[in-house]
């Protein structure tokens, strides 16, 4: 009985799946293999390769570079983008000492409460404060950015396919609409308030090109601040903000894995020793 019912149920599902397949096949046969081609599907590009010190299982942060990236964030990105998950105290990990962290925090203005009146006010930051948000709320953010909300950058390096390479490619990918695209898709438009960028999902990004000219930021360590260098450095900084524990993770991982390989070797010989008594013939 189980087998008869099972047989019928199995045939039913198989027939329905094949029927759906046949319908799909019919569509292909009558209309040809329709793959919808849009400007995005043809001209969207994968991120450019980017190599950072934090890549790979041996990766560590290049703190010089991350500090430069922080400077780019502070002088350019922070105008629109928040860094919600990062506190000033975290900067200590970048090689700043306590006094420098304190001085750095004090340069930022954070929301506060007047201790006498209870009214909202502002005050200089302290190391325990988180980086302040550039906009009071989403509506203010939209109003100031042609209807788009600049995303929080703390996790950007983990929240996009391609990670740091994606950030680097977006920052250096602004360009005029290619003639080929205009020829192929005459309807394609870059509406006012958006900018063409082939590394962005729908090709039109609401962010104006933030890094426009070499020397826009003057690096304290004297590194020439080309647009390419600034984009790379800020990508490296955002890898750090996305996972400040990354270097520690790699550092911890090696002894753990090497110990486990050693212990597994011992376990293998222990197993051999135990089974030697059972005299199993392996043939």
């Amino acid at each position, binding site marked *: 009985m189980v087998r008869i019912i099972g047989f019928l149920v199995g045939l039913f599902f198989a027939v329905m799946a094949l029927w*759906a397949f046949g319908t799909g096949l019919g569509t292909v046969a009558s209309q040809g293999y329709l793959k919808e081609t849009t400007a995005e599907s043809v001209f969207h590009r994968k991120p450019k390769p980017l190599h950072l010190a934090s890549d790979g299982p041996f990766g560590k942060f290049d703190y010089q570079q991350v500090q430069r990236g922080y400077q780019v964030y502070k002088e350019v990105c922070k105008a629109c983008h928040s860094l919600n998950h990062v506190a000033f105290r975290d900067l200590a990990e970048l090689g700043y000492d306590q006094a420098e962290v304190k001085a750095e925090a004090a340069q930022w203005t954070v929301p506060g409460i007047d201790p006498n009146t209870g009214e909202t006010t502002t005050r200089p930051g302290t190391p325990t404060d988180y980086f302040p948000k550039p906009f009071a709320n989403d509506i203010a953010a939209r109003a100031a950015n042609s209807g788009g909300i600049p995303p929080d950058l703390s996790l950007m390096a983990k929240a996009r396919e391609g990670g740091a390479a994606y950030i680097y490619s977006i920052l250096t990918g602004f360009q005029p609409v290619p003639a080929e695209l205009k020829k192929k898709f005459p309807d394609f438009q870059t509406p006012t308030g958006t900018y063409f960028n082939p590394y962005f999902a729908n090709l039109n990004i609401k962010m104006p090109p933030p890094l426009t000219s070499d020397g826009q930021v003057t690096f304290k360590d004297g590194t020439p601040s080309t647009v390419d260098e600034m984009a790379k450095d800020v990508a490296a900084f955002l890898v750090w903000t996305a996972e400040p524990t990354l270097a520690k993770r790699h550092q911890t*991982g090696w002894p753990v894995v090497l110990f486990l390989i050693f212990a597994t070797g011992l376990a293998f010989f222990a197993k051999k020793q135990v089974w030697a008594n059972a005299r199993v013939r392996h043939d």
Partner: protein
Amino acid sequence: MSFPWAQHYEPKVPFMRWLDEKLPLPRLVYNAIGGGYPVPRNLNYAWNFGVLAGFCLVLQIVTGVILAMHYAPNATVAFDSTEHIMRDVNWGWMLRYAHANGASAFFVVVYLHIFRGFFYGSYKAPREMVWLLGVTIFLLMMATAFMGYVLPWGQMSFWGAKVITGLFGAIPLVGQPLQVWLLGGFAPDNAALNRFFSLHFLLPFVIAGVIILHIWALHIPGSSNPTGVEVKSESDTVPFHPYYTAKDGFGLGVFLVIYCAFLFFMPNALGHPDNYIPANPIATPAEIVPEWYFWPYYAILRSFTVSLHIPFTNVTLIDAKLLGVLAMFSSILVWFFLPWLDRSPVRSGHYRPLYRKFFWVLVVDLLILGYCGGSRPEEPYLMISQLAAAYYFLHFLVVVPIVSSFERPEPLPFSITEAVLGSDKKAVLGENTTPAT
């Protein structure tokens, strides 16, 4: 419940004698996974995955309980509290990555455990109950994993919850109210997140309970083995300890090396980047995909694109969406009936030339379904998954019963001892071991 030649527990020190009289817990352990459990001597490494699955459950419970001390199940702060664990909690990043990758590792070993069962016919009499409890554990695991993925409250958490609970909405008449009741609202929100957290904490302990039943049911007939020939005499078995504790110890080491390589060097490889974006009910992600271990079922769900209707009329009997939901649930439920669908008296695929071939077709079929389930729902993946879904159901419900009724199995060895050691038992077993008579 054991073989007559099983070793007996003998407490050696006075304290253990005293304990054994009042509460024979050491005796229980000794008979379950110690010297008191005789196991076929020919188990290969495919038999390691049960112990590994048990290890994964313990790993998930230990890391999960600690994570729950720092996590806040509230829609406004859940995402931030997850990041707080990653950044501020001591070793929090390791706990969270261990838990997230632990879920994947759990599914890897359980899939291998299940496929061991398919190949070696472990589901057959007298072990049907072991199999039924095992499928129950797998269903509980799926529910637990699904709810766990919702907790970080990222974009994939939210939209995954919306899609999966939406499946209940496809049930006629009661579907919509049922979906609202399950979610505690019209869309996933605080109510849903809170109950998912509560159930995600509860279910692993339910799983642990069913695992005890699973192992209990296993110990009645004893473990199966690669020949599928039942144990006949003492020379067919070795005590679980030290033989299989040693073998499982090595297997556990290999598992841990691979698991830790993921944990420390590519912890996000199996996740989706969108889950690092906070949940946003008004921004649908470009693609909504579940975690990799659900991909085959997701492909089955999506491959039913045609409604069942009476030909030449507009009367729809079963809507395409409902059909997909039924197919997806049936794809696991069908495993419950496997012991009665497969009539072959021979258990092991080693001696079933035809079944063996179909087994490998099933493996490839599931890999194809998995690949399609992880891809966008467009051609050619849709058409490929439709063919693969059709084979999936035909395999269990048509191919297995038919093959089992007319296949001519290859000759079986007389006993496990003969299969392992050849017929000259005395020569290979040594003087100290009593050969089978």
